[in-house]
């Protein structure tokens, strides 16, 4: 780990000013950043510790039904916040399917959204990586890329974004509120994750010095709460990143889908909003057949970036299943294994 300066600003303004220096990085719980520093993959010259900043640890219900969540709210606290979990059950489910209880107790909302790709070559400073060191190339392209992107990738970078939390959030049109050297602004969460172009793979949509101060869910996002699910395929039952995941949210009236929201995780450098599939489902009857068609539409542009063609078929099946689960209705209680394929309808664990 390199030598770095450590600052603990007292206000957001101070934090932004401190982080505007080149080489500065915000430090939240550090569960991602410190690992990458120890590996030598990230070498910030200045850490701006935001964990003591006031007023970023609240979950606020806004007039009209929306929610504002401070960037320092812990992942576990948010998932267990009753009003929030009731309004956005798939977000709570996604949060609880991520990492481990210990990590969720530490990890912050801002850190989760801003976490870095798990691409092994990104983590290995000796490997070429355009995302880490622009212009060096991409060792994943011809390397071990079984879990890499099948959508929205370019030869510059085939990495995926690993956050579970962000997948239902993108489906629900979440917005991030940002403080920066030029004042406050906000952007659609989706835009926090730029896709790579032919040559570059920027890590985020933030400008230098900008910090995520809060996350906002619009009022209509809660209108899906009766039919909102997250489903995550993974290599072990817990404590593993998604191989493919999907969030579905439906508004169903009189047996027809009035509105559908669908996003895929772990298939692209951003949580992948499947708008064509959403459009297909408008006015449709919730049925396996229609959901299959939606899945095909969602993956129409997918192509393997390496030894990962299976992820396309897998994603298709995950979409179909998550839509079926959502159509069945949000379970009364959080499943014992959140977002797992191994849950009975009543929420019990399959074999305990």
């Amino acid at each position, binding site marked *: 780990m390199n030598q770095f300066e450590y600052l603990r600003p007292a206000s957001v303004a101070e934090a932004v000013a401190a982080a505007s220096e080149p080489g500065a990085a915000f430090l939240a719980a550090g569960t991602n950043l410190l690992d990458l520093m120890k590996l030598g993959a990230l070498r910030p010259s200045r850490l701006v510790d935001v964990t003591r900043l006031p007023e970023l640890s609240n979950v606020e219900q806004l007039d009209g039904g929306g929610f504002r969540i401070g960037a320092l709210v812990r992942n576990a606290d948010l998932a267990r916040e009753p009003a929030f979990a009731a309004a956005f059950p798939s977000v709570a489910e996604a949060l609880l399917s991520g990492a481990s209880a210990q990590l969720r107790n530490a990890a912050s909302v801002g850190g989760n959204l801003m976490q870095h790709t798990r691409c*092994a070559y990104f983590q290995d400073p000796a490997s070429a990586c355009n995302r880490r060191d622009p212009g060096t190339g991409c060792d994943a392209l*011809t390397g*071990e890329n079984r879990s890499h992107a099948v959508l929205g990738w370019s030869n510059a970078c085939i990495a995926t974004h690993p956050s579970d939390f962000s997948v239902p959030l993108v489906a629900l049109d979440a917005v991030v509120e940002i403080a920066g050297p030029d004042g406050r602004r906000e952007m659609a969460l989706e835009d926090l994750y730029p896709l790579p172009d032919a040559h570059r793979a920027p890590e985020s949509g933030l400008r230098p010095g900008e910090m995520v101060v809060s996350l906002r869910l619009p009022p209509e996002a809660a209108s899906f709460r009766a039919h909102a699910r997250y489903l995550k395929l993974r290599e072990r039952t817990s404590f593993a990143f998604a191989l493919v995941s999907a969030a579905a949210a439906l508004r169903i009236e009189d047996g027809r889908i009035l509105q559908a929201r669908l996003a895929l995780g772990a298939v692209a450098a951003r949580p992948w909003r499947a708008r064509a599939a959403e459009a297909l489902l408008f006015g449709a009857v919730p049925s396996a057949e229609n959901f299959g068609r939606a899945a095909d539409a969602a993956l129409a542009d997918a192509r393997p970036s390496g030894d990962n063609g299976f992820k396309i078929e897998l994603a298709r*099946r995950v979409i179909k299943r998550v839509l079926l689960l959502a159509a069945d209705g949000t379970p009364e209680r959080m499943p014992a294994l959140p977002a797992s394929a*191994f849950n009975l309808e009543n929420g019990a664990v399959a074999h305990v």
Partner: protein
Amino acid sequence: MSDTISPPSTHVRMGSSRGQPLTRRDGLLKVTGTATFAADNNPQGLVHAVVAVSAIARGRVASLDVTAAKAHPGVIEVITPANRPPLAIDPDQKTGLFGFRFEALQNDRVRYAKQPIALVVAETLEAATEGARLLSPTYEAEAARMGFDDGERYDPPAIGIGAPTNFVRGDIAAGHAAAVHSIKTDYRTPAQYHNAMEPHAIVAEWDGDRLTIDSPNQAIVMSRGLFAGYFGIPAENVFLRSPFLGGGFGSKAIMPGPYILAILAARMLGRPVKLVLPRDQMYGPVGHRGATEQTLRLAMDADGHLTALEHHATAQTSSFDEFIEPAANASHNLYASPAIETRQQAVRVDIGTPGPMRAPGEASGSAALECAIDEAALACGLDSLEFRLRNYAETDPASGKPFSAKALRECYSRGAERFGWAGRPLAPRQMRDKAGHLVGWGMGSALFPAPMFMAEARATLRADGTALVETAGADMGQGAWTALAQIAADGLGLDIEQVEFRSGASDLPDGGVAGGSGHTATAGSALYNAGTDAIAKLAELASSDPDSPLFGSGNAGVEARGGRLYHREDETRSQSYAEILSRAGVATLEGTGKGGRDPAQAEARAMFSHGAVFAEVKVDPDLGQMRVTRLVGAFAAGRIVNPRLATSQLYGGMIWGLSFALHEEAIHDRRSGRPLNADLAGYHIPVHADIPAMDAILVDEDDPYVNGLGIKGVGEIGITGTVGAIANAIWHATGVRAHRFPIRIEDLIA
């Protein structure tokens, strides 16, 4: 005492401590964090060492910026091939069966990624870490050879630790000619790393030419000699302490180069040095399970009896040394076949030398064999348990010798009954649960040798009637502190509370190797014999004391129990140990004992533990998500010293098997040779949510030949059988036969 074990002397009551499910005697220390592991030692004046490792897998180090590293505040010394002091033995020299070649900065060659290329010593760990980074090595790289097809393929002189490479018994061609059914199948197993919870660590301190080492070690006295050899000092000058290991699994029985460097640094600087390997640096110099490719051909007659069994395996080893995962040997001793042939080849790749890893060969070989047996049963239209019973080996298939004891039939029946195997449909994809998941049942046979090594022990009766027992055994978490003390107490006819047990240091009698599942049997026998030796001397004192109630009873005429000797024919005649010693004016009375296999028995019989494992899995039919939902194992492993600890060992083995089947795999970049998942986030082992409801049945087995105590081992057998059982259950659930481990989602959704 002789080198071999005599049957237990008649004067000791059997089983007063043995057989009791005592909890770990070191449990309180462990859960309160007060057990001292190697890295917990901080002697006065300690400095910290960090290894700089190679980022290439083959080539040479062209430059190191030693000046930059040395200029970093706190850095004391940087050791590179340019200034590394000489060693008494060339690290590239083979020093015997357990002696592996290693890197101790003997030159600038790089033979695998993560190889040590320099050692930085500093006042703090942080300074040493940064110093190592500042070395900014440059390389002259050559293309790495990583795959089975990239490296040089050859016929190794031996496999495992000195085992013969090839084996043939019977007429394979005739076996195939006689066959009505046959299968040919292949399986691949990946490189796996031990990943013990406790990292490799050493604290080394010199005092003149005497060396004190704190380091987790599975073979304490043997290693003392190895360490001494490299520094040209007598073995007695080395004091090695290893009271606790946070797991070893074979990786802590072998000398890693970084340890030698830390000791060198301590001598160079005249200060104690601590070196703790970070997780990723254990993916190279401390061994692993080599990847294998295995092919099996099985031929059966019309009734499903094997007529030929061929098992060929190719294992990866390093470019400069050999440990060939002896996978094909798994087919030697389990199923009866008139013709058996096993062959092993090796491929040299640019990776650290593999080494023994929990059930070396048995694990990977059993995985392939048990799947092949399942395929063979299917080819014959037989239930796979029935097929195994038809091919039950009444005598050892490899040698024709009788087994010392074999209760496998009972393992099959007890396991099958507990699991509910009866009525299992033969065809796959027949069972579903309420949620619509595919359900599959599979089984595997478990087999593990019951070896013994050599061990010595001392038992000292003290004036107050209590005793001190000593042997340099190793507690790797398996419970040696408890099980060995139980055996020692029995040998002395004392309650376990009256026995002080000293272990885990090299100034004690040689406790042998904690490996091969033979530690309890070997060190336990030595302890038991030391106890009976002391008791025999005590009986002698009493018998020759005219005023003793036991006068004239002779050694064989007394029984030792609860700290007293009793006359065998007359219970009213007895005397306490303390009284006998005091009347004889003896302050302490010492007995010694050895543990080892009786060569005559070893020659006459085949000695193994056996078991049967049954697995239930559920698989999502569309998504391929898999989960093991039940595991039942039944094991016959001689006399069980401590059922609680034995069960926990068997659980651990079965979970390891689950991990092998579905999780573990080290991934190396094909081009650079660097490991890509050298941490516990990327290298998956099961989490609690992956571990199903488990049952480990201890099947009684009385083995009068294996050793005087009837003890076999339970440490590794649980892995064998389990891997195959799970893979077979996945086939039974889905109808898809995966031919590689770990089995992955994509194998099931094609």
